């Protein structure tokens, strides 16, 4: 508990974290308010909804992966972790502490952004923050905080962590999608569809996007090719599987991080 408090305090004191908070709040608010003024009110998947979702998927993973991973890598680089090992602190607690502190810090940033949106939106007649959007935001903080801890453990220095975080971010956000689109030009449609289904489960960005469309009842936007997939995930079993996979996306990286850091400790 003490370690979490300490980490949380360090995160909040970090200038980078403060800048990220201001930047995220500014961009998020600007997009929401501009779209609110420019577009008619809708109930379906619109450009406004797509902007919200893309902003979330672009910025949150980027900030969480870089800040979270550098926080862990900094401990390794500065030998703060070696010092911590002399205290009665297990690596499981260390990993969990880092993860929880990152999650809390980003919760605070997101709440700040949402509250500014509500405040300014209130002066424009009111904006809507759908519960599904909030759920996906929370899920993305959990998933990418867990991933950031693994990246931090893999990296030896802060710069290395930053580079790895950026590579992973661009892979998950852009490069895998472009690779899939390129594959689609040489394979049959049903093959592309099957590969895409696999990628949805293996790429947390796609998983969260798919989850948003699914729970917002807008999955038809994905088109008739994915009818069976959507029908399954709309069932009770599908919902359970969705939550199980989401939890796995948090637990597996944390377990991996613990395994790697323990192995690193032994090697050292």
């Amino acid at each position, binding site marked *: 508990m003490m370690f979490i408090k300490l980490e*949380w305090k360090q995160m909040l004191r970090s200038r980078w974290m403060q800048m990220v908070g201001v930047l995220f709040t500014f961009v998020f608010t600007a997009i929401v308010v501009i779209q609110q003024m420019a577009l008619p009110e809708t109930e*379906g998947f619109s450009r406004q909804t797509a902007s919200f979702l893309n902003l979330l998927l672009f910025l949150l993973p980027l900030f969480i992966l870089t800040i979270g991973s550098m926080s862990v890598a900094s401990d390794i680089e500065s030998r703060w972790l070696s010092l911590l090992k002399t205290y009665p602190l297990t690596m499981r607690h260390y990993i969990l502490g880092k993860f929880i502190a990152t999650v809390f810090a980003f919760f*605070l940033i997101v709440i700040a952004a949402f509250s500014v*949106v509500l405040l300014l*939106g209130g002066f424009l007649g009111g904006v809507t923050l759908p519960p599904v959007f909030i759920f996906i935001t929370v899920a993305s903080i959990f998933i990418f905080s867990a991933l950031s801890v693994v990246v931090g453990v893999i990296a030896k220095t802060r710069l290395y962590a930053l580079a790895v975080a950026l590579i992973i971010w661009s892979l998950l956000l852009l490069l895998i999608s472009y690779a899939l689109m390129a594959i689609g030009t040489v394979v049959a449609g049903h093959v592309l569809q099957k590969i895409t289904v696999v990628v949805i489960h293996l790429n947390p960005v796609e998983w969260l996007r798919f989850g948003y469309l699914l729970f917002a009842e807008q999955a038809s936007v994905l088109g008739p090719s994915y009818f069976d997939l959507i029908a399954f995930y709309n069932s009770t079993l599908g919902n359970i599987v969705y939550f199980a996979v989401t939890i796995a996306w948090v637990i597996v990286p944390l377990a991996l991080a613990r395994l790697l850091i323990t192995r690193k400790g032994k090697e050292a």
Partner: protein
Amino acid sequence: MRKIILTLMFWLTLSLSASANLQQQIDEAEPGATIEVTGEHSGNFLITKPLTLIGKDATLRATGMKPALTIDNTQDVIIDNFKVIANQRGIVVKDVDNARIVNIAASDMLIGIQLHRSKNIELAYNSIEGTDAHYAKKGNGLALFQSEDLHVHHNQITKVQDGIYIEEIQGIHVHDNTVTNSRYGTHFMYSDAGLVENNTYERNVTGLMVMMVDGFTARYNTSRYHNEMNGSGVLFYDVKNATLAHNTISENRLGLVLQKCDTVRIEDNEFLVNQTALEATRVDDVSLVMNNTFIGNILTARSDKEGVTLYANYYDDYNGIDADGDRYGDTPYTAYSSFGQWMVRQPAYQYFVASPSVELLTVLDQQTPVAQHMLVDDKPQMIKNEAHMMGINYAQALLGGLLLMSTLIVWRKGSKR
């Protein structure tokens, strides 16, 4: 003298109402008589002469699989104000000239009103509600075949296969109807000289479906919330000489789909917040999309390599300026998007619609040479964009303010030494 006889006849027929068997009354009535019907009548009633049936809290219940009421080979028939209950078809009209079927309430049947080989027919103010079964197991609200000069208006239809199914009709005016939760709102097949106006289509698979038609006009209709897997607001397939004007097409998966169309004019419509506003394949170069307003659509237009001509439309995502003040942008608007074209060729690509990677790709598209000649509007309209100001929501502003203050306090407290 004629007047007195007619009045006597009327009172005579009125006195028979509700007591005798309805079919017997119909058979015994003089041509041109009026029968007032009350209460519930079971059977499969048949009219073969000019007649007016007026219901007063009356129900016609079909027995077996036959229609509750059949009007066959006659003229000048009026059916007004009945509740109809049937397993298969509510009312069937065959080979009739001049008939009015109005204020019919039919529910839980397969087909509400079916029309064959008839002329000068008015179907109005009817309310038809199907079942919750799959579309394949349902019939049409109004099924109209091989007829002429039809007037279909102010009907409310829901939960059927096609709200208004029109096949091989010459001259039909469909207006002020509302069709919801069905497969197609109005479905035209092989029917010429159709006019569809002021109708509302909501939450069907497709709002207005027009197939293999030569000569057609749809105007002032609203088609929205068609977001199923194959959903679209309006779909034209193999249509010639058609006009789609002043319609509002909003919040659909595909706003307007044009497939294999010749000489089609799409003008003065509003395309609002659709996933894809316009999809065109095999459209001739005479067809024109002009003076429309495109606001808030994720993808404005996509097409096959033949494209579609865009002219003087308004696009809310146009970035150009109007330096010469002629109310048109000085640089062309490009609706082209590589991704949009891929989606036309390979539906599996649709998974990526509006994804982060595609958003970036679309921005890059604007710089590519191919973007200069496909789906380009050389004269995009510049309209003053009206902001949607709706007053102040004090509760939300207060909540936001309190939440922000709390967050800042927690942040400050958490970071204190």
